[in-house]
């Protein structure tokens, strides 16, 4: 069959398909799409494209059909998910199930964060002058100022205005660190390892120093409430980075490129959870932790309750479901 006859015979169908694609762009026609003969139309176009290619019809016609089929392909195989439902499912069980499945990287990341942190706290109780290796005198003065027991409010905020300000700051700064920790994992995991160790030591240095200075009630009272959210979030974002890096170090049966792609799908889901936790931590830190009048025991109690709830959440929530 020559090209002219081919085009005359099928032109109307192509135009109908083109019009259909345009009308489908508008929302709310998904159901109609499923009911109609749309899939059959799409298959016909792909068939015509294959014929046009194999019969060496003019490149212009092949390009036109290719574009038509491509648009159909994107429409046909594009994901149509309900974002809100996916988020609820993720929080309600998908995330803890994923953390359990990826527990190896999560444990490694947690060790890289918590061992230097607690090590530093312990070290500074005996050798307080060691803190000068990690923090400058200016930083020390500013931390001492923030947690001085003479303050009305704890931490950096002192009024409702500055609470909102610090909220914005915590989100921009802390979630940004999560993202960096994740992204630099692409360098064979080295960036994530660095950020985990570095953050662990920094947090440990501040905590250890202030504890040794005797600012126990103010400092620990301040950090207790959001500690579980923030530290677990930081560890999991590091785990996401390690997951990326490990795919390049040890790709297994796949090529490095394919392994990276597979791991990135998992890692980005870990990161969603981590960033969500850090986001909540910022809220708690700005509006709960900073209240100076709350009794110390209550603050510690709330903090420990969050830790207990998270441990239970990661152990038990979403059992028996697929982590994907």
């Amino acid at each position, binding site marked *: 069959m*020559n*090209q*002219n006859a081919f085009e005359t015979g099928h032109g109307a169908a192509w135009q109908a398909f083109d019009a259909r694609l345009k009308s489908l762009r508008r929302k709310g026609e998904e159901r109609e799409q499923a009911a109609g003969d749309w899939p059959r139309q*799409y*298959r016909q176009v*792909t*068939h015509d*494209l*294959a014929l046009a*290619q*194999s019969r*060496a*019809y*003019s*490149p*212009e*016609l092949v*390009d*036109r059909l*290719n*574009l038509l*089929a*491509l648009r159909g*392909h*994107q429409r046909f*195989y*594009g*994901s149509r998910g309900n*974002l809100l439902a996916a988020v609820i499912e993720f929080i309600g069980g998908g995330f803890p199930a994923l953390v359990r499945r990826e527990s190896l990287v999560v444990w490694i990341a947690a060790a890289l964060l918590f061992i230097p942190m607690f090590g530093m706290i312990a070290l500074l109780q005996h050798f307080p002058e060691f803190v000068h290796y990690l923090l400058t005198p200016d930083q020390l003065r500013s931390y001492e100022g923030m947690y001085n027991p003479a303050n009305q409010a704890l931490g950096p905020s002192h009024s409702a*205005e*500055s*609470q*909102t*300000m*610090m*909220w*914005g*700051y915590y*989100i*921009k700064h802390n*979630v940004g660190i999560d*993202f*960096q920790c*994740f*992204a*630099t994992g*692409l*360098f064979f995991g080295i*960036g994530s390892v660095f950020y985990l160790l570095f953050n662990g030591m920094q947090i440990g240095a501040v905590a250890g120093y202030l504890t040794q200075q005797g600012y126990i009630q103010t400092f620990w009272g301040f950090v207790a409430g959001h500690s579980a959210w923030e530290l677990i979030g930081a560890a999991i974002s590091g785990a996401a980075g390690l997951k*990326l890096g490990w795919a390049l170090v040890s790709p297994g049966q796949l090529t490095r*490129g394919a392994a*990276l*792609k597979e791991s*990135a799908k998992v*890692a*980005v*889901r870990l*990161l*969603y959870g981590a960033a969500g936790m850090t986001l909540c931590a910022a809220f708690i830190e*700005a509006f709960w932790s900073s209240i100076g009048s709350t009794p110390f025991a209550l603050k510690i109690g709330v903090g420990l309750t969050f830790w207990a709830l998270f441990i239970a959440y990661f152990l038990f929530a979403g059992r028996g479901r697929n982590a994907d």
Partner: protein
Amino acid sequence: MLDTLRRVPTPEGIELSLRLAGPVPRAYAFATDLLIRGAILLALIQVVAIFGRSGTGPGLILFFLLEWFYPVAFEIWWNGATPGKRAFSLMVVNDNGTPVTVGASVTRNLLRIVDFLPMLWAFGLISMLFSRDFKRLGDLAAGTVVVYRDRVRMRGALPDVPPLMPAFPLSLAERRAVLNFAERHALLTEERADEVASHAGPLVGNNRVPARVILGIARHHNK
């Protein structure tokens, strides 16, 4: 073959072609986005300043969103293209040709900071030049490609010359080359067309106007 087409097999048993975009148009698009983001940032600062100190917190959150999620939002809700990409007819798709997914878009855009390292997007550029599909590191991990958003080009009618039977049967690739030439013929001067057509060798022999021979063969195959 050395070209920038990527062939994507589909479940229908056909191959679709994607036209990949290289570093230069992508850099233009990125620079455009940078300008747009800068303009939004300036506008935001003005608005935030109206609210004084209480505006700082929400302002910081908006900066955070602008910094990390400007490309993600556009790629997901605006057919895979930020305004900059749209201006240069580019779009992001998964490397199987389907629209970019949320996870892939987040991955490729968060990894942008790695592409920036060690300075001025050096890793991203190196990665684009060395990977088969012009992928920067973020694209490699996310499994995405940046392609041209094709438009349907109007077909130019073949020049009206008498059809001509070729001296010997042509292969598929040869027929395609002949048709390609015929369709682009209108863009060439007569001399240049003859010059190009003369490369067809035995097909045109010693004919004085080889372009007419090729056009005739194209007509023979097409009509």
